């Protein structure tokens, strides 16, 4: 256990009778970039607060660097946190903000020259050296975010905690900061727990994603695993854009399923004939103009232009409509017939309880 950066053992948190986090079990390895992904209210921020010591768990144990920290004060946990709203100290300059973590402990307070040097190093990493004399209210959103990062970096903590750090930035800046955060993590190599509800952030940054819903872990795995083999309907629906199509179906015995009038071959065994199932088809997996594979024919009733491609809605006479991504876009396709094929490996099967088959 000692070689985990962070380790959760049966951690639960409840307010009154409401369970925010239930029996959370997780180990974060040193150097790992772990993303907690889930809709708002799923308990992901609460987990972060419990690691930092802002909240105490109702039961279970949290270990940081092999030490149980349940009863350790936040200041002694060796974790640094970047808050969603930055939480910069408005009455301190950027320099004083970044230097603050170095100056709070009288015993280990570095000399003036060393403080100056470490603040400049941290500021240099996030490229805000030119702003050190300003006050937070004179900075843009992106610059404030960098100051918050520098303040976390300067302490050289064992663990970084980031609570939706990019959600207050505009889309373009978020793109840039995402890349810089990846580079920063590669450079520092510190275990990081990153909380977000943005699947794009999770997919691009994580070395491992933990998908959460209603206080429970739904799936834990690499971005490829959670995308290609979602463990249940929730993960399948939450990850991937556009959202996966879910169609009610039943097994046609062996490796085939029946959706409406269409029979599809699958890679997984669908079980005995007649077994009720839900199949999931990613809009991005559908192929137009291909002869082989599972063909689904229908009429295009809607086409949403998104730039490089279009999202078309297909009525194939099945239990629900099908949305398919198509490269290129022509308005006059609406009302015409089209055939889309899916590879058997791209047909995701879920049983009655929503678990992957």
């Amino acid at each position, binding site marked *: 256990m000692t070689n985990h950066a962070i380790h959760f053992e049966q951690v639960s948190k409840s307010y009154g009778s409401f369970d925010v986090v239930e029996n959370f079990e997780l180990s974060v390895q040193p150097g790992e970039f772990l993303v907690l992904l889930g809709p708002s209210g799923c308990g992901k921020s609460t987990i972060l607060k419990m690691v*930092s*010591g*802002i909240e105490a768990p109702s039961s279970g144990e949290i270990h940081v660097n092999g030490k149980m920290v349940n009863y350790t*004060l*936040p*200041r002694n*946990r060796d*974790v*640094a*946190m970047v*808050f969603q*709203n*930055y*939480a*910069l*100290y*408005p*009455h301190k300059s950027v320099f004083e903000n970044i230097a*603050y*973590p170095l100056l*709070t*402990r009288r015993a280990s307070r570095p000399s003036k020259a060393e403080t100056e040097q470490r603040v400049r190093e941290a500021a240099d990493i996030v490229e805000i050296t030119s702003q050190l004399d300003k*006050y*937070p*209210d*004179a*900075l843009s*959103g992106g610059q*404030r975010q960098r100051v918050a990062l520098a*303040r976390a970096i300067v*302490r050289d903590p064992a663990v970084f905690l980031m609570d939706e750090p990019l959600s*207050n930035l505009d889309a373009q800046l978020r793109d840039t900061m995402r890349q810089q955060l990846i580079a920063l993590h590669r450079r520092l190599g510190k275990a990081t727990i990153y909380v977000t509800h943005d699947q794009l952030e999770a997919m691009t940054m994580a070395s491992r994603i933990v998908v959460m819903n209603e206080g429970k872990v739904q799936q834990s795995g690499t971005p490829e695993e959670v995308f290609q083999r979602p463990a249940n309907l929730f993960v399948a629906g939450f990850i991937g854009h556009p959202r996966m199509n879910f169609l009610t179906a039943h097994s046609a015995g062996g490796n085939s399923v029946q959706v409406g009038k269409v029979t599809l071959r699958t890679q997984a065994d669908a079980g005995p004939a007649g077994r009720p199932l839900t199949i999931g088809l990613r809009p991005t997996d559908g192929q137009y103009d291909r002869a082989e594979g599972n063909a689904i024919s229908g009429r295009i009733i809607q086409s949403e232009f998104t730039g490089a491609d279009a999202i078309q809605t297909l009525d194939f006479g099945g239990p629900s409509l099908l949305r398919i991504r198509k490269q290129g876009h022509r308005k006059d396709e609406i009302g015409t017939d089209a055939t889309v094929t899916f590879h058997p490996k791209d047909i995701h099967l879920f049983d009655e309880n929503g678990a992957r088959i």
Partner: protein
Amino acid sequence: MSLRRSFTNRPIASLQPTGAMMLTAYVVLCFASIVSLTPFLYILSTSIKETNSLFTYPPDWIPASIYWGNFQKLFGETNFARWTLNTLFIGIAITLLKLIIDAMAAFALAKLEFFGKNLISVALLLAVAVPVAALVVPLFFIIRSMGLLNSYWALILPALTNPLGILMLRSFIVSLPADLDHSARLDGASEWQVFSQMTLPLIRPGLVVHAIFTFMLQYTSFLWPLVAIQSDKKQVLTVGISSLKSNFVVDWGLISAASLLATIPITLLFLALQKYFLSQNMSGAIKG
């Protein structure tokens, strides 16, 4: 294109005041200024006239020659200077002590969790509702049994118990973003550092308001000093000035001179601190 046209042609509701609005505002303001300044000017006028020339008609607003006798008499024959020092000393002592006590109490009530916290808050709120006049008699017996009557402590100690400042500062502290203290604690701050380095600087406008309010209240308090202090040497301005009225003749010139001088310290305080009334810009802390 049509959208843009409809925008440019739309009359824009103007926030710029019109001439008529400005005129009305000035008339109202002038009237209010006259109402509030006239008594003050009358005191000023009275203080530089001999009392026996006061009741001429029509009133002589600007006397032909300035008469300094009232001021000479004030400093020569009364304890006016001593009363002023007493008032300033007691006012400053109470203000400083109250700022320290109230800020710490407010921080505890706003940020810390402890047994009986809600009960204390409710008790403070109820205590605000008790009028000062109702407290004078019990307070007199308490202070007398403590043997503190006719001492500065008799004026200082009861004033420290006013709970209004705690409640006001608490609301200031509650409005600070919680993530600031979370962040400070994670950055290694002790609870005392969170209080002294984060909370206090950020509620400075509240502290200034509280200081002015406390000092003003003390500066103008009359009933309790009248009851608690018998020695003329330990008396404060309000009671001292009213004691200038003797039984048969009222020396209005003397009283006016004293009243005029008494307004100076409080005016200076206001001028010195008014810039802090502008609330501090919090926008750098938290993106809204």
